[in-house]
C-alpha cells in the first residue's frame, strides 16, 4: 500500500499549491478587474476561461446526457452500472462551468438578469437558460445518490417516480445547450476562419459532444479502476468503444462533406497557421482514435480503449480552443496567449473537479456494490492495470 499512499500525498501537495495560487488569482480578479488578471483585450474579449472552462467544461460533461439517454430512454441495461459516475461528472462539470462564468463575466452579480431581461434573439440567452435549467435537472438526477446516502425513502420515491421526466428534459436541454455553443459563432461569418465557420457548427458541436461523452465515460471508468480500486467493466467499455467508432466516423464524414461543399478542402493542404492547428485537431479528434479503434486488438483491450478515449478528449479540446482562439486570431489581427493567472484559475477548477469527484466517490454511493451487478458479464482478467496498483487502493 505504500505506492498509492505516496502518490496520494504528492497529489495532495499539488492540490494545495494550486488552491493557494487560485485564491491569490481570485482576489486579483475581483479587486483589480479582468485587465489585471487576464490577457484579454478589445481584440480578444473571450480567452481561456470561455474557450476551456466553459466550452470544454460543457463538452466534457456530455457523458451525463449520452449515458442517461442510452440507459433510461433506449433502455440499454448493461450500461446501468456506470451511470452514476457519469451523472456525477456531468453535475460537477456544470457546477464548475457556473463557477468559471462568475470569473469571466464582467458583472457576475448580474448573472440572473436573463431571467427578467429577455432577448430570445440572442444565442447567449438560449445558452443562459440551458445552463440554468440543465444544472437544475442534473441536481435532480444526482439527488437519489444523496437521498439514498441519508436514507430519505419518501423523497427518494418521489424523485424516482419523476426520473423519466428529468431524463427526457436533461437530454433535450443538453442537445440544445451543446449545439448552441456552436450556434454562438454563426454570427461571425467574416471573423471565424473557414476551417471552423460552417452553417453546420451546431451539428458539429452536438455530434462531438456525444463522442466526448463516450470518451469521457471510458476515461473516467479507467481512472476509477486505477485510483479507487474499482473493478474495470471492460465489456461495457468495449461496447462504448464501438459506439465511439460510429460517432467519430459520422463526425469525420460530415466534416469532409461540409468542407467539400464549402470548397475549403484545398485549404487543408495549403500550409498556414490555422492549417497546422486544424491538422493537429483532426488528427487527435478523428484520425488517430478512429484508426486505433478500428484495430480489433486495440478495441478489445483496456489500455487501447483508454488511449483512444484520451486522444478523442484532447482532439475535441483542441477543436473548441481552435474555434474560440485560433480561428479568430487572423481576423482580429492579434494573437492571444493566456496570462499565468488565467491558467491558475483554470487549473484550480480542474483540481477541484478531481478532488470533489474523489470525495463523492468515497462518501456517496456512486459505484454499485462490488459484485452485486451482472457478475456473469465480468471477466476475471479485466483489471485496467495489472502493475503496481493493488485492488481497493483508495480504501
Amino acid at each position: 500500500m505504500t505506492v498509492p499512499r505516496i502518490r496520494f500525498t504528492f497529489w495532495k501537495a499539488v492540490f494545495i499549491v494550486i488552491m493557494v495560487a487560485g485564491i491569490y488569482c481570485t482576489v486579483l480578479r475581483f479587486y483589480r478587474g479582468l485587465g489585471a488578471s487576464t490577457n484579454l483585450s478589445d481584440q480578444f474579449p473571450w480567452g481561456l476561461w470561455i474557450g476551456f472552462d466553459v466550452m470544454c467544461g460543457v463538452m466534457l460533461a456530455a457523458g451525463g446526457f449520452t449515458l442517461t439517454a442510452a440507459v433510461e430512454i433506449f433502455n440499454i441495461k448493461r450500461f446501468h452500472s456506470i451511470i452514476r459516475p457519469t451523472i456525477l461528472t456531468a453535475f460537477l462539470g456544470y457546477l464548475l462551468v457556473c463557477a468559471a462564468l462568475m470569473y469571466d463575466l464582467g458583472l457576475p452579480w448580474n448573472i440572473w438578469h436573463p431571467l427578467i431581461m429577455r432577448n430570445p434573439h440572442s444565442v447567449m440567452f438560449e445558452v443562459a437558460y440551458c445552463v440554468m435549467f440543465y444544472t437544475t435537472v442534473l441536481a435532480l438526477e444526482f439527488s437519489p445518490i444523496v437521498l439514498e446516502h441519508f436514507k430519505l425513502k419518501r423523497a427518494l420515491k418521489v424523485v424516482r417516480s419523476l426520473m423519466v421526466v428529468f431524463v427526457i428534459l436533461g437530454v433535450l436541454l443538453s442537445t440544445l445547450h451543446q449545439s448552441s455553443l456552436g450556434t454562438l459563432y454563426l454570427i461571425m461569418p467574416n471573423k471565424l476562419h473557414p476551417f471552423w465557420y460552417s452553417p453546420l457548427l451546431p451539428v458539429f458541436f452536438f455530434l462531438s459532444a456525444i463522442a466526448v461523452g463516450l470518451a469521457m465515460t471510458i476515461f473516467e471508468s479507467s481512472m476509477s479502476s486505477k485510483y479507487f480500486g474499482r473493478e474495470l467493466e471492460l465489456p461495457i467499455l468495449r461496447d462504448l468503444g464501438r459506439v465511439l467508432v460510429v460517432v467519430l466516423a459520422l463526425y469525420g464524414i460530415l466534416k469532409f462533406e461540409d468542407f467539400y461543399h464549402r470548397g475549403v478542402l484545398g485549404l487543408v493542404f495549403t500550409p498556414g497557421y490555422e492549417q497546422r492547428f486544424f491538422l493537429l485537431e483532426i488528427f487527435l479528434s478523428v484520425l488517430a482514435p478512429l484508426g486505433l479503434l478500428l484495430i480489433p486488438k486495440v478495441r478489445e483491450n483496456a489500455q487501447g480503449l483508454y488511449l483512444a478515449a484520451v486522444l478523442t478528449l484532447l482532439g475535441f479540446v483542441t477543436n473548441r480552443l481552435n474555434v474560440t482562439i485560433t480561428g479568430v486570431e487572423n481576423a482580429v489581427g492579434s494573437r492571444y496567449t493566456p496570462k499565468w493567472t488565467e491558467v491558475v484559475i483554470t487549473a484550480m477548477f480542474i483540481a477541484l473537479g478531481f478532488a470533489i469527484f474523489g470525495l463523492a466517490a468515497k462518501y456517496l454511493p456512486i459505484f454499485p456494490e462490488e459484485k452485486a451487478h451482472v457478475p456473469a458479464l465480468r471477466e476475471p482478467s479485466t483489471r485496467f492495470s495489472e502493475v503496481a496498483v493493488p485492488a481497493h487502493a483508495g480504501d
Partner: protein
Amino acid sequence: MSKGILYDATMCIGCKQCEQACATENGLPYDDRVAAQEVTSAHKYTTVLTKDDKFMRRMCMNCDDPACASVCPVGALKKTSLGPVTYDKSRCMGCRYCMAACPFGVPKYEWDKAVPGVRKCIMCSKRVAEGKQTACAEICPTGATKFGDREALLEEAKKRIHDNPGNYLPHIFGEAEVGGTSVMLLSSIPFNTFGYRNDLTERALPMYTYQVLSRIPDFVPLFGTMLGGIYWITHRRQDVAEAEASEKDQKGGAR
C-alpha cells in the same frame, strides 16, 4: 425617420475637432496624448486616421440590424428607431458577446475597472432624440461629417459620386454592408487602407443565428415526443416480457 451620418473623407482636413467634441459630449478625457491615439477605445469613441494626405474616421457604424444588439442576452444594447445603437450598463452582465460578434470590432471594454462596462459611440442618442445633430457633425468645420435623414444622406452620397466620379470610389461604405448601417462613408482610396474590411457580407448578421434559433420552439415538442416515444417503446417491450414471464410462472405454479 431613421437618422444617419455621412462622412465624406475627401472633405476632411483632419482637424480632429470631431474627436474633441465627442470626448466633451461623453465626458471623456481629451488632450494631445489622446489625440495621438489612432485607435478607438473605452475612453475614445471616434478617431481620425491619417494616411499621407488622406483621412478616415472610425466610429460605431450604428448598424440597421446590429449584431451586438441581437446577441445581447439581456437587451442592454438596443437599436433605437431614430438610428443610434444604445447601451444600458444597468442591464449588462458582462458576457462580451457583443464584442465578439461585432463585424467592425467596435465595442470596447473597461478592462482596468472592477465594475466594467461596454463603451462605444452611441450616435449621441440623447441629442438625436432632442432633434439635435450629433456632436461630431455639429462641430465639423468643413461638412465632411454630415448628420441627417439616412435616406436623404444616401441620395446625396450617390449624387456626389455621380457628379464627381473622378473624386470618389464608386462605393458607399455602409449602404449595404451587413445589411446597411446608419453611418456611411465616402472615400477616394480603398476603405481597407484604414482597416475597413472589403469582404463583409451584405446580409444582416442576426439572420445567421436567427435561422437556427427560430426553429427551437418547433424542435422542442418534436424531439421531446421522440424521446418520450422511444422510452415508451423500449420499456413496453420490457413490460411485455415481464408480464409473459410472470404468466408462465403462474401457469407453472397452477399445474
